[in-house]
C-alpha cells in the first residue's frame, strides 16, 4: 500500500496518577493500521492493550490519565486536536465496540434511540430518516424483524444481539477505522464465530480498518492480517500473522503460543506474573519471567526493535548484534504447520 497508513500510532505513552505513584499503562507503543486491514493487539490481561486503544481516541479519562505521543488518522493527530474536533472523529471516522455488550448500552433508552443518537451526533438528519437508517443498519447486522425491534430496550436482547446492535451503532458514520476491544470475550463460542464473521463481512463491505484487541489467539489466527504483541505496556513483537504464528521470535510470544491448547504440552500458562505497573523493571519488561534472560536483559531500557524480515520486528536482545538468536528460537513451534490451523477450532 502506498502513501501513509490509515492509523499511525507512535510513541504512545499513557500514565495514570494514583496514590501508589505514577502507573505506566502504555509505554512508548507504536503500530500502524492500513486501510481495510485487521490488526490485532494481543497480550495477557493487564498488558495495556485496552488502554492503548482507548488512548487513541482519548477515551481514557484525563485526569487521572495523561496521554503522550502521536496517533495520526489519515495524517491528522488525534492526540493534539481540540475536544470538539476529536468529538467529530469519534463515532464518525473511528468507531468503538467494547468487551461487554451487557453494559455497553444505556438501559434507560431503546436501542433504536441509541443508534439514532450516534447518527445525529454527526449528521443533521431528520428523525424519520434517522430511524430508517437505524432500522437498515439493524437489519444489516442481522437483527431479525429490525423495524419492530427498534423500540425495544437493551435488556430485551441477548448478549450476541446486543453486540450486533453495538456494531450497527458503530457503522452509522461509515467509519474508516473500527476499534474493537475484545468484542467476543463475553459471548459464548458459537456466537463469537458469528460476530467475527459479521465483522469480517462488514470490513469488506465498508473497507474499514479494524484494530482488534484480544487475548484469544484463536480469534487472532482467524481474522488478523498483522499482530502487535504487547506486554506490560510495551510492544514485544510486531509482524504479519504468518510471521508471528510460524516464527514467533520473542520468548513472550512463544510462551503465548505454547498456551494454545494444541501447541506443545505446556498448557498451564506462563509462570510468574505481570510486573507492578507502578514499579516496572529495568531492561526488558519480560525478563523476570523469561527463561533465556541474561544480565543484559535486566539493565537499561526495553531493547530496541530489531527488524527480522520486512514488517517483522522484535524487541529482544538475542536478535541484536553479538547475540545468538538460535538460543531463543523455539523449533517445536516453528515445526508445526501453518498459521491457518494454529489453535483455531473449526466452527
Amino acid at each position, binding site marked *: 500500500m502506498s502513501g501513509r497508513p490509515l492509523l499511525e500510532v507512535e510513541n504512545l505513552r499513557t500514565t495514570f496518577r494514583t496514590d501508589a505513584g505514577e502507573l505506566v499503562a502504555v509505554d512508548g507503543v507504536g503500530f500502524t493500521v492500513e486501510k481495510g486491514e485487521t490488526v490485532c493487539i494481543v497480550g495477557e490481561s493487564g498488558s495495556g492493550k485496552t488502554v492503548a486503544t482507548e488512548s487513541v*481516541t482519548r*477515551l481514557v*479519562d484525563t485526569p487521572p490519565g495523561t496521554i503522550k505521543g502521536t496517533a495520526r488518522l489519515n495524517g491528522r493527530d488525534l492526540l493534539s486536536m481540540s475536544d470538539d474536533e476529536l*468529538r*467529530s*472523529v*469519534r*463515532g*464518525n471516522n473511528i*468507531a*468503538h465496540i*467494547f468487551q*461487554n455488550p451487557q*453494559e*455497553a*448500552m*444505556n*438501559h*434507560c*433508552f*431503546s436501542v433504536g434511540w441509541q443508534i439514532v*443518537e*450516534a447518527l445525529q*451526533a*454527526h449528521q443533521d438528519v431528520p428523525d424519520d430518516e434517522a430511524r430508517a437508517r437505524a432500522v437498515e443498519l439493524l437489519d444489516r447486522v442481522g437483527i431479525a424483524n429490525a423495524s419492530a425491534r427498534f423500540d425495544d*430496550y437493551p*435488556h430485551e436482547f441477548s448478549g450476541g444481539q446486543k453486540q450486533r446492535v*453495538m456494531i450497527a*451503532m458503530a457503522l452509522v*458514520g461509515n467509519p474508516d477505522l473500527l476499534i474493537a476491544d475484545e468484542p467476543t470475550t463475553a459471548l459464548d463460542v458459537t456466537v463469537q464465530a458469528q460476530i467475527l464473521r459479521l465483522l469480517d463481512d462488514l470490513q469488506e463491505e465498508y473497507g474499514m480498518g479494524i484494530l482488534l484487541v484480544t487475548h484469544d489467539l484463536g480469534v487472532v489466527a482467524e481474522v488478523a492480517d498483522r499482530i502487535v504483541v504487547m506486554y506490560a505496556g510495551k510492544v514485544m513483537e510486531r509482524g504479519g500473522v504468518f510471521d508471528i504464528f510460524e516464527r514467533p521470535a520473542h520468548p513472550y510470544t512463544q510462551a503465548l503460543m505454547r498456551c494454545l491448547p494444541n501447541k506443545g504440552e505446556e498448557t498451564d500458562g506462563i509462570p510468574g506474573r505481570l510486573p507492578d505497573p507502578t514499579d516496572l523493571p529495568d531492561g526488558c519488561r519480560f525478563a523476570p519471567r523469561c527463561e533465556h534472560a541474561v544480565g543484559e536483559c535486566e539493565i537499561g531500557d526495553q531493547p530496541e526493535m530489531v527488524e527480522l524480515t520486512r514488517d517483522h520486528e522484535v524487541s529482544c536482545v538475542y536478535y541484536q548484534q553479538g547475540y545468538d538468536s538460535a538460543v531463543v528460537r523455539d523449533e517445536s513451534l516453528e515445526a508445526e504447520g501453518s498459521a491457518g490451523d494454529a489453535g483455531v477450532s473449526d466452527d
Partner: protein
Amino acid sequence: MGLGRYITARVAWAAAVAFIIVSLTFLLLALSPNPQVQQAATQAALQGDNPQEAREQARQLRGLDKPIHVRYIDYVVGIFTLNWGWSTMRSQPVTEAILSSLYYTAQYSIPWTILTVTIGPIVGLYSSANKYSWRDHAATGFAFFGFSIPNFFFGIILLLVFGIWLEWVPVIYNTNVAVFSLENARQLILPVFVLVTGSIGGIMRVSRNESSEYMNADFVKTARAKGVSPLRAYALHILRPTMVPLSTTMVGQLLLLFAGSSLLVEVVFSIPGLGRVLFESVIAQDTSLVLGTTLVFVFVGVIGNLLQDITYTVLDPRIGYEDR
C-alpha cells in the same frame, strides 16, 4: 399488560388505599368521644337539667343516634361529595377552611418543591463529576448541615438574624399582600429557604452517590465514543438512570417534609396554612377539621406514591409491570 393498563391499575389501587384510610378514620372518629356532646351534657348538668337527656339531644342533633352503617355511608358519601362537615373553630364548612389554608400553604410549598427537585439532582451530579474537589466538599457540607439541623430551629435563627437584627424581612406574616408581589416574596423567602435546605441535602447525597456509579459506566464510555457531547452525556446518560432510585428518595423526602416540617415552619413563621390549621384544630378539639386536614395529607401521600410508582416504570424500562 401495557403501560396504560398498569397506570389504570395503579390509580385504582391508590383509590382503594384512600378508601381504606377514609374508613379507618371514620372508625377512629366513631370510637372517640364527641367533645360537643360532652359539652352539652356538662352544660345541662351545670344548669340543673338532665345531662343524659341533653346528651341524647345533642347526639340526635348531629345524627349520632343513627345506626353505625348508616352513619358510615353518610360519612363516605360526604367525603367523596366534598361535604366534609362543619368546623366549629372557624365557623365555616371544613372544605372552605381547608381551601383557604391550602392557599397559603401552596404559596411557599410550590416554590420550595420546585427548587429542591430541580437544584438537588443537578448539584449532586455536579458533585459526582467533580468528586473530592473543594466544590464537592462544600456541597457535601451544606447537604449534611441542611439534613441535620431541625427546620423549626433553623427558621427561628434565620428569623432572629434577618427579621429582627437586620430587619431585611418582615417578622409577622401578612395575609393581605398579593401573591405575586415583592412583599410576598420577602416574607416567604425564609420559609422557602429553610424547607429547601432541609430537603435538598438527602437528594443531593443520593444523586451524587447514584450518579457516581454511572460516571464510569461502560455505556457512558459508549456515548463518548459515539461523539456525544459531555453535557449531553451527563444530562441524558448519567442523570436518567440516576433519577430511577432518586425519584423514590425524592417523593419520600418531599412528603415527609410536606406533612411534618411544614407544620412547624408554619407555626414559626405564623403562616395560616394547612399545617397550622391542623395544629390549631387539634388543640380546639374541632374533630371535623382535624379529620379534613388529615385527609388532605393522606391524599397528598397517596397521590405522591402513585406518581412515584409511575415515574419509576417510565424512567426504567427494565422494571416490569406484569403481574402487579
